[in-house]
């Protein structure tokens, strides 16, 4: 209970009359001191009574609109107060978490109730740029009757969870069906030295006598040979396309982010099975990362880090020749034909507002003359070095260059998008010719472009076109083509297509709704571990 300035003034008045009584030597003035003092005491007691009554009758809520959100998203919290009529003026202050940014202005967190008010509410808009679990502070209420003031904590302290931006639900499958892609135990169909018994067969001339199973021979009366499954590994090369077209999508949820998630899970699986893994990353002008096949533990970690470090390379500006490019920079390439999107082209990632990081990278790429670019430019150019510069068709050339040098035919996993189907088909053919088996993981552009779901029917048509491309690739011998997409967007498009097909019977009979089945298969995780998909 803190007195206000007015109360201090009255207290001073009481003291003055006491002093005056002594000065003029008149006891009657002490009567004024006593009366004013009693007046203060009773006001104080009355304030306590009102405050107690307010505490008993007050109901206060502090309710966030959402309990889970993502970094940078805006949401609201509503504060509501209800109480019986009180003579106190109440000021409620919401307890926003420290890590939030109030977007409604500093005064927006305050809810004021005049005396005799019985209810009030206020909605506060805020943003949370920091990921994590954030707890609201308890709201505070300051009650005053004009003479005394007290501040109390009221109401609950709810918690919100802020997730970092990134792929939330990765769908890997075909036509809406989920498919397991991660490697598990795989059959080699070869016998040799190993631990797992394969078969027991009769000795035939030419067999090595060391392999005779003497116990079986004694039991069966004729020489028998026990064969074992040969322990083999499966060399896997990840070819990750990180050209500019892979930058489509919201910040942290681009095509490349989704493909990166899948690639990381494959690397983790390969590490578990001791399968050798290599990585080739292809930018706009050539190979940016090339790691040879290896089973070294540090190499797995290195590949993992390289995948995390991958960023979509920037498209050259139209006036890319205005400065002399540094060694290895990506600014001298000709305009790429791959910017044409055959499935449906021109509405692309350029519609999305660039993030601050992306703007900074563009500044560095374009060689702006501000202090930022001048300071960091040399370091950035050194970092952005291509290991192998390829003049045209970087994806195909990279595949050709990489696979040609492999002694064993590896399992090739290609991560890319559908922005250039012709080049993609040729790339898959090259991979198939030079490798053993090809898995193509494609992101459909329609599910990543901002605003593309505004007209779901058109989006469905574009998805059908993508699905045809995927099926064409999947029909090739030794090739499996799968889609990688955000599950929510995919479900929206498929639902729209299903509704459209139902509304117009026969009109879309030639188009797949959900590919191999109409509805996504439930009950399996998107990227299960230990499942076999080696074909």
């Amino acid at each position: 209970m803190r007195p206000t300035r007015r109360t201090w003034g009255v207290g001073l008045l009481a003291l003055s009359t006491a002093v005056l009584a002594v000065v003029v030597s008149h006891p009657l003035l002490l009567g004024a001191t006593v009366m004013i003092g009693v007046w203060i005491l009773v006001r104080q007691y009355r304030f306590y009574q009102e405050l107690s009554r307010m505490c008993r009758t007050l109901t206060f809520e502090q309710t966030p609109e959402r309990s889970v959100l993502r970094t940078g998203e805006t949401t609201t919290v509503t504060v509501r107060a209800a109480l019986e009529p009180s003579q106190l003026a109440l000021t409620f202050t919401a307890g926003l978490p420290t890590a939030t940014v109030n977007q409604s202005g500093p005064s927006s967190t305050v809810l004021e109730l005049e005396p005799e008010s019985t209810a009030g509410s206020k909605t506060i808009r805020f943003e949370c740029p920091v990921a994590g679990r954030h707890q609201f502070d308890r709201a505070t209420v300051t009650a005053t009757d004009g003479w005394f003031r007290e501040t109390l904590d009221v109401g609950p302290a709810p918690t919100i969870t802020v997730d970092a931006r990134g792929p939330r639900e990765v769908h890997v499958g075909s036509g809406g069906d989920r498919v397991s892609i991660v490697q598990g135990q795989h059959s080699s169909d070869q016998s040799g030295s190993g631990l797992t018994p394969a078969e027991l067969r009769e000795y035939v001339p030419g067999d090595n006598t060391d392999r005779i199973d003497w116990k079986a021979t004694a039991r069966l009366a004729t020489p028998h040979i026990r064969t074992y499954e040969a322990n083999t590994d499966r060399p896997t090369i990840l070819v990750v396309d990180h050209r500019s077209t892979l930058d489509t999508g919201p910040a942290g949820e681009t095509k490349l982010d989704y493909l990166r998630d899948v690639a990381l899970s494959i690397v983790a699986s390969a590490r578990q099975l001791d399968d050798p893994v290599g990585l080739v990353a292809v930018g706009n002008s050539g190979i940016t990362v090339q790691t040879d096949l290896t089973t070294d533990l540090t190499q797995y970690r290195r590949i993992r880090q390289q995948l995390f470090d991958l960023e979509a390379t920037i498209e050259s500006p139209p006036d890319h020749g205005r400065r002399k490019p540094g060694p290895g920079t990506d600014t001298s390439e000709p305009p790429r034909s791959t910017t044409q999107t055959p499935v449906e082209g021109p509405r692309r990632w350029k519609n999305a507002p660039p993030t601050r990081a992306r703007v900074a990278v563009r500044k560095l790429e374009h060689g702006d003359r501000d202090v930022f670019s001048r300071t960091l430019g040399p370091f950035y150019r050194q970092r952005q070095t291509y290991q192998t510069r390829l003049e045209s068709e970087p994806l195909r050339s990279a595949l050709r260059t990489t696979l040609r040098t492999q002694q064993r035919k590896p399992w090739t996993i290609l991560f890319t998008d559908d922005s250039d189907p012709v080049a993609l088909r040729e790339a898959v053919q090259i991979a198939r010719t030079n490798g053993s088996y090809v898995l193509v993981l494609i992101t459909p552009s329609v599910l990543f472009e901002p605003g593309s779901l505004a007209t779901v029917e058109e989006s469905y048509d574009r998805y059908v076109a993508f699905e045809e491309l995927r099926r064409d690739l999947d029909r090739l011998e030794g090739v499996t083509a799968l889609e990688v997409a955000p599950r929510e967007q995919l479900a929206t498009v498929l639902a729209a297509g299903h509704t459209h097909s139902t509304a117009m019977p026969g009109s879309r009979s030639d188009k797949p709704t959900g590919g191999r089945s109409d509805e996504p298969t439930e009950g399996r995780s998107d990227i299960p571990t230990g499942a076999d998909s080696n074909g």
Partner: protein
Amino acid sequence: MSQRKVVLIYRQELILMGEKLNLPDIALETATYHWMELVAVPGICLCFGLVFGPLGIVAGAVVAGMWALFGVPYALALGHVFLVALLPGTGIGSEIVAIGIIELGFGTLLLGSLLRRSAELTIGFVAIGSLIALGGLVWAVQSRSLGLGAGVTVVVLAVASYGIHRYELVALGLVSETVAQSPSNSPTSPRDPK
């Protein structure tokens, strides 16, 4: 005219006055008056006039103006100053009855300002009880020494005010439970090797 109507009329007038004088807080604070105040203020003016003549009427009017503009404490202080100034002697002599009547008016004004609703018996009892107790104590002490009486008055008021403050903190659970842990009984403190 009922009490309710009187209150409303005063509220409107004083709000208008408050806007003119740029004193809205004070005007609003004193806008709703208890009937005892409305009786006490004219009574004080009348008593001043009867006891001290025309000068008393002026003093009573000034006290009433002070009450209307700045509230009861200032009116009480000024009223007592006028009372002391208008008394012929330095002591309380033959005008004991007149002083008693005026003090009764002050007491009524004090009580009326503290009662917002007629049924607030608790507040009334607290006010009257503390007034009598403190007044008696001060009267008893000041007969020995006026300075001692003034000091006792101030100290008693300060202690009582602090007592109510502490009572409020405990009653509303606003006292944080801090466990003072001295280094000697801390579990992590090193034991005496002996």
